[in-house]
């Protein structure tokens, strides 16, 4: 296994290098081949790794070369594959491959075609490095690298000011999170003297660090996760990131990169298990975000924005699961979410594609008949997101809710149920507004142009729809929880710390399931009532009735504006003030003042230079007199 796992990230990297160098002049329209082939190969290798790692007690570690070696600071450039990694590998390469194929159709004819595929490959490489790293620093490397790719891909249409701004915003907000992550990594090193997962976890187990330090580490790491996984209050970048091409939203901002935070917390389960307070924070922020983001999702007009907030909300679920120690449930939801959210984004992309680039749901409608393949697959995704039996989302979400209930955190469970209700509501609001209705509310030319997407796009949709429908059976509760069992070796230590028995959810809690399906159905019904039954007047009425509330929700609780008015303004205006008043006035003023002083001093003593040579000579003789006087005094005194 060591013989080939390094190929998994290296293949996309090679594809990236070749594509970026030769793409512009040479490969051009054929730029998709190398990345897709590389990705397919990586997928194949991931399957192989998955098969081989099953049941293994110890992770497979491959140290490629020394990266840092400074005194006690020894960090290898090393890869590691265990069960968690292998699941992530499958998700990344599998969903990634589908999205690559989809992009071939979606990005067709774009002037930056080769660039797009190059960036995607680079992203795949970075994400694979992230999940395959065997130490925190390399994780950080992948972490930043995916952020970079995200930056590039969000700003792919760089001539649009919003896209360029969104890319920058994503990177900087992530940097805020990474600030914590970086400090966390340093604190880990300073505390344990190593950054290797195995070494760190062992040291944690041996109690090498006090609880306070562990808490600090966990919170700092979680800060990074908050940035990357768009948790409140660092969620602001993700909706803006929708400026990127839709496949990017699907791959990076739904299926893979944003889940890196979840992966990281799960990976650090041992640390978190030792820091119960941190777990409360994780769960609390997750729950809050799940609810908060779903609220905002209700009021969005842009189809991608709805999905973005839904992603934020679903990520909140995952953190909620992590917060109560349901590690494998979080990973399960991560996987299921990757399937159905990628599906939804790709479906939305297909819709946008057919609508000639329109993203406003208000200008869609009645698309079901015109693009049936997209509609059906989108429905599958919508049902999965709403958590309807037996779609994937149902099983995974239910496992999370079950875990919170079982842990006795009823408030979290309640929040989850409420969020599930809202999720179902906004999901089907989106579906109804987009696909239902009598006619398309758009201009003639666009309507005429509506067409089903090419095969390259629909085939991935169908595959993902199947995965979203059936994927949930991997994680059925009780003895049937294949995924949970598979992941057991990874989380065994953390579970032990938390005092869990190996079989976490033994019984199938039919009541809980019924409740969650019930609220989901309620949400769907409400959406149907508002947007289909009384579509003519009710939405407007509601909008008018809850005007202010609607406005607040529509404007995402004005958090962006708040940040702009406080942090950004403080930084920019404060810096400008300091520049003008301190740097230029005081520091530089002191320097130039020194020059001025000498100049003035020079002017003051200038008259001494009379220009008459005899005056100078008199000076010389005066000097001679002084010297002689000294000599005489010394001699005779």
């Amino acid at each position: 296994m060591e013989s080939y796992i390094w190929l998994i990230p290296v293949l996309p990297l090679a594809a990236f290098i070749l594509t970026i160098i030769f793409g512009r002049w040479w490969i051009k329209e054929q730029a998709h081949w190398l990345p897709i082939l590389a990705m397919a190969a990586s997928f194949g290798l991931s399957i192989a790794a998955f098969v081989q790692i099953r049941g293994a007690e110890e992770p497979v570690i491959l140290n490629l070369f020394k990266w840092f070696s400074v005194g006690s600071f020894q960090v290898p450039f090393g890869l590691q594959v265990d069960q968690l990694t292998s699941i992530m590998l499958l998700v990344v390469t599998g969903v990634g491959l589908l999205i690559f194929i989809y992009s071939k159709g979606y990005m067709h004819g774009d002037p930056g075609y080769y660039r797009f595929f190059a960036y995607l490959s680079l992203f795949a490489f970075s994400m694979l490095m992230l999940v395959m790293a065997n130490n925190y620093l390399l994780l950080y490397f992948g972490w930043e690298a995916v952020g970079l790719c995200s930056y590039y891909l969000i700003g792919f249409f760089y001539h649009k000011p919003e896209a360029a701004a969104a890319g920058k915003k994503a990177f900087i907000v992530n940097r805020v999170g990474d600030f914590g992550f970086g400090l966390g990594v340093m604190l880990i090193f300073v505390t344990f003297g190593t950054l290797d997962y195995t070494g760190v976890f062992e040291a944690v187990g041996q109690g090498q660090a006090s609880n306070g330090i562990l808490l600090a580490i966990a919170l700092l790491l979680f800060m990074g996760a908050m940035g990357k996984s768009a948790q409140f209050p660092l969620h602001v970048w993700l909706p803006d990131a929708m400026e990127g091409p839709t496949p990017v939203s699907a791959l990076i901002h739904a299926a893979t990169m944003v889940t890196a935070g979840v992966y990281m917390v799960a990976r650090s389960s041992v640390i978190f298990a030792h820091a119960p307070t941190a777990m409360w924070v994780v769960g609390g922020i997750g729950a809050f975000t799940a609810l908060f983001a779903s609220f905002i999702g209700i009021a969005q007009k842009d189809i991608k924005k709805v999905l973005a907030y839904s992603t934020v909300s679903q990520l909140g679920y995952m953190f909620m699961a992590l917060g109560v120690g349901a590690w494998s449930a979080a990973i399960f939801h991560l996987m299921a979410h990757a399937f159905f959210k990628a599906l939804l984004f790709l479906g939305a992309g297909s819709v946008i594609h057919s609508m000639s680039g329109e993203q406003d749901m208000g200008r869609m409608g009645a698309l079901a008949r015109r693009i049936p393949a997209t509609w059906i697959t989108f429905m599958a995704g919508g049902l999965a997101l709403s958590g309807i039996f037996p779609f994937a989302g149902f099983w995974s979400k239910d496992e999370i809710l079950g875990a919170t209930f079982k842990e006795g955190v009823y408030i979290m469970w309640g929040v989850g149920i409420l969020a599930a209700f809202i999720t179902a509501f906004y999901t089907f609001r989106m579906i109804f507004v987009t696909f239902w209705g009598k006619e398309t509310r758009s201009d003639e030319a666009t309507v005429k142009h509506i067409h089903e997407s090419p095969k390259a796009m629909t085939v991935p949709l169908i595959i993902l729809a199947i995965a979203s429908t059936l994927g949930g059976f991997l994680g059925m509760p009780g003895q049937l929880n294949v995924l949970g069992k598979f992941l057991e070796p990874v989380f065994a230590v953390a579970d032990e710390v938390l005092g869990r028995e190996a079989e976490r959810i033994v019984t199938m809690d039919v009541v809980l399931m019924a409740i969650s399906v019930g609220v989901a159905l309620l949400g769907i019904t409400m959406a149907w009532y508002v947007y289909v039954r009384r579509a003519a007047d009710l939405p407007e009425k509601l909008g008018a009735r809850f005007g202010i509330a609607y406005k607040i929700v529509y404007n995402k609780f004005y958090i962006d504006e708040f940040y702009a008015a406080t942090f950004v303004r403080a930084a920019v205006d404060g810096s400008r003030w300091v520049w003008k008043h301190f740097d230029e006035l005081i520091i530089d003023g002191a320097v130039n003042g020194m020059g001025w002083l000498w100049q003035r001093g020079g002017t003051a003593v200038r008259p001494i230079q009379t220009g008459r040579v005899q005056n100078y000579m008199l000076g010389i003789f005066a000097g001679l007199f002084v010297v002689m006087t000294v000599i005489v005094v010394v001699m005779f005194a």
Partner: protein
Amino acid sequence: MVEKILFIIFAVLTVAGAIGTITRKNMIHGLLLLVFTFLNVAAIFFLTQAYFVAMIQILVYAGAIMVLFVFVLMFLNLRSFQQEKQTHRQRWIALVLSVLVLVEFVAVLYGVTKAKYGFSLASVQGGYSPDQIAAAGGNNQVFAKALFNDMLLPFEVASVVLLVAMVGAIIMVKKEKHGQMATRQWEPGAEPALDVAEEEV
């Protein structure tokens, strides 16, 4: 003893000539007194048995250099200067200062040469006592040997210095080409200076 008396006589004449030089209104008189002073200095060199230097003093100083001075003085309208005030504003303070410095010189010299205050002057012996010089063929011989052995390089350098001075002097007094030389008119607005040397030639 005779030498000492002669020395005192010549020394007094030297200083007197010097004082005369610097007090004359008429530059020609000053110049002649200067030559007189140089001759006295040459006599003092002679008393010190530095015969060659004494001759050079007469030939070069009293001869060549002074001729040069005379030559230049003759170009200039000497009378005009005698109408003007001859002494500088700072003369009194300068005089007082000079006298003070002289007193200090004398004091220091007194202190030093009495060997009471530090160092003895008799410490260095060069190996050229008058007897030895006579044995080696006289002052000229010895002087030349020293000059062309130990001082050869400075000697050559001195010749270069003289050459440079000559070239420099010629360039400075040369007729000025338009806007080229350093002696160009200093104040652009003022009327062109009369080129005296030019007229004379």
